[in-house]
């Protein structure tokens, strides 16, 4: 018993581990809430694109500030919001298919980001941090920023819960109820961008889409209503953060990857064993029928 307690407590003796866990929990919750809408509306690819498209903003922030965290945060946020609105506008114009347009913007911006970062001396190390996260490098100021922006996203999601519900389930109903559908859609894109920015340090650009979609998709498998889906997703997101960090501490693997692997494992368990939507359930039903 005491041995297990020691296993749990030992990492917490390091302040950077405590900060990392706090950040991972906040990021897990916020990603899960916003990710619920992304999963229900089929926006996973858009989320992935948006995360990658933020890289040039990070790079410029890095070059301008010489590596200080806070300017990078604000530059990333600016780029995220502008790109989110840009993608929204591109999706509306009918010249090329939406996913093609998103693919072009996303890879172009990503390439620009890599090009900018490659001009720096410590290229490989810094690029790895941006791509895969550096949750153990979270500073107290980072924590406050995450709490502030994360809290803002959370409040907005809860405040417009019923509007986003209608918009996701039945966009035509949203129009006939005269809800401001266009404004709500852009608001959601901005929320996704903000979520990505606060999560950058935890999981990085490349693994972002996992934090946004995997816990939400797991929630989807386990319940039949959107509220509980969000709640389950939030719990799974937070839990993955904590378990992932312990895993990374004891097994010595990259923290962002560990968090995402835990998410994925929980998803796979749900995929097989979920009542009604699970594979096992389907198989048993098939045999019974």
């Amino acid at each position, binding site marked *: 018993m005491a041995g297990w307690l020691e296993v749990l407590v030992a990492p917490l003796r390091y302040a950077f581990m405590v900060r990392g866990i706090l950040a991972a929990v906040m990021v897990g919750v916020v990603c899960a809430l916003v990710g619920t809408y992304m999963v229900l509306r089929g926006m996973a690819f858009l989320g992935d694109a948006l995360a990658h498209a933020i890289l040039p903003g990070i790079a410029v922030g890095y070059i301008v500030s010489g590596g200080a965290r806070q300017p990078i945060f604000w530059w990333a946020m600016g780029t995220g919001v502008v790109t989110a609105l840009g993608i929204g506008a591109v999706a509306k114009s009918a010249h090329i298919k939406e996913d093609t347009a998103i693919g072009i913007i996303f890879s172009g911006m990503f390439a620009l980001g890599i090009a900018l970062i490659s001009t720096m001396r410590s290229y490989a190390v810094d690029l790895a941090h941006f791509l895969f996260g550096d949750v153990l490098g979270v500073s107290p100021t980072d924590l406050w920023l995450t709490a502030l922006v994360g809290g803002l996203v959370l409040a907005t999601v809860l405040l417009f819960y019923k509007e986003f*519900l209608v918009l*996701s*389930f039945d966009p035509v109903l949203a129009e006939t109820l*005269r809800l401001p559908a266009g404004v709500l859609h852009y608001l959601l894109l901005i929320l996704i961008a903000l979520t990505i920015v606060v999560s950058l340090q935890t999981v990085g650009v490349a693994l972002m889409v996992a934090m946004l979609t995997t816990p939400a998709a797991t929630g989807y498998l386990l319940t039949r209503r959107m509220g509980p889906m969000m709640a389950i997703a939030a719990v799974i997101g937070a839990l993955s953060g904590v378990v992932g960090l312990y895993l990374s501490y004891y097994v010595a693997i990259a923290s962002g990857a560990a968090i995402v692997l835990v998410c994925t494992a929980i998803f796979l368990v749900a995929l097989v064993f979920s009542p009604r939507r699970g594979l096992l359930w389907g198989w048993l039903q098939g045999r019974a029928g």
Partner: protein
Amino acid sequence: MLDKIGIVKPVAHQSDAAILEVTGLTVAYNGTRALDDVSFRLEAGERVAVVGPNGAGKSTLFKVIAGVLEPTEGEVRVAGCSPRGHICIAYVPQRTDVDWAFPVTVEDVVMMGRFAKLGLLRRPGREDRDLVRRCLETVDLTAFARRQISELSGGQQQRMFIARALAQEAQLMLMDEPLSGLDIPAQDRILEILDELRGSGVTVVVATHDLNQAADFFDRVLLLNHTLLGIGRPAEVFTAANLQHAYGGHLRLIKTPEGLMMVDDTCCGGGR
């Protein structure tokens, strides 16, 4: 300012205006005309069937009336005003256009009808929940209130949307092929419910493939194939000439002892 960001204050109904007046309505997608110079008017409380082959523009007509789609030419007036000023128009989608795996229960969906009246930021209160319960009673779905929507049969799914329109306090209900793909008892139950609603003055417009049903259950029929081919009592509109015009080669008219039989081989499926 408020209407700039899309917040609409519902307009008052003009008591002397028709519930629906469509004038010279044309809708073109990329140069092809889905609807061409369509004009008609409906009085409050009518039951009207919109009939026409697949791709005749029935769904387009409904979406313009609902204010979801902008007309290319002409105009639509609902109770004297543009549809975009109203929250009393309910559009019941085709069942194939709905994501039935979406994590909502039957009562969640019916409650969505209340959201316009509630306005932004307000949560449903006890009155809203009471109304939703009464709407579910009206369509006989009380026992299914907490089911996830994929657990309903086709007829029950359609009744759920009628309940949602009632919760919305809709004055004009547009139903896109509510009966196609349902078995006969389920169809009859829906027609029965629509009949029960007659007393409340709701105008119901139903797109359907079934010409017999249109003739038997509706006050008037509207025959559409991009242009308006006729509107009026079924006997006046469903003439051999009109039907040939609407269905062209798809329709066979067969003389039987009981009268004229129509055989339509364009049955069911998508269509807009």
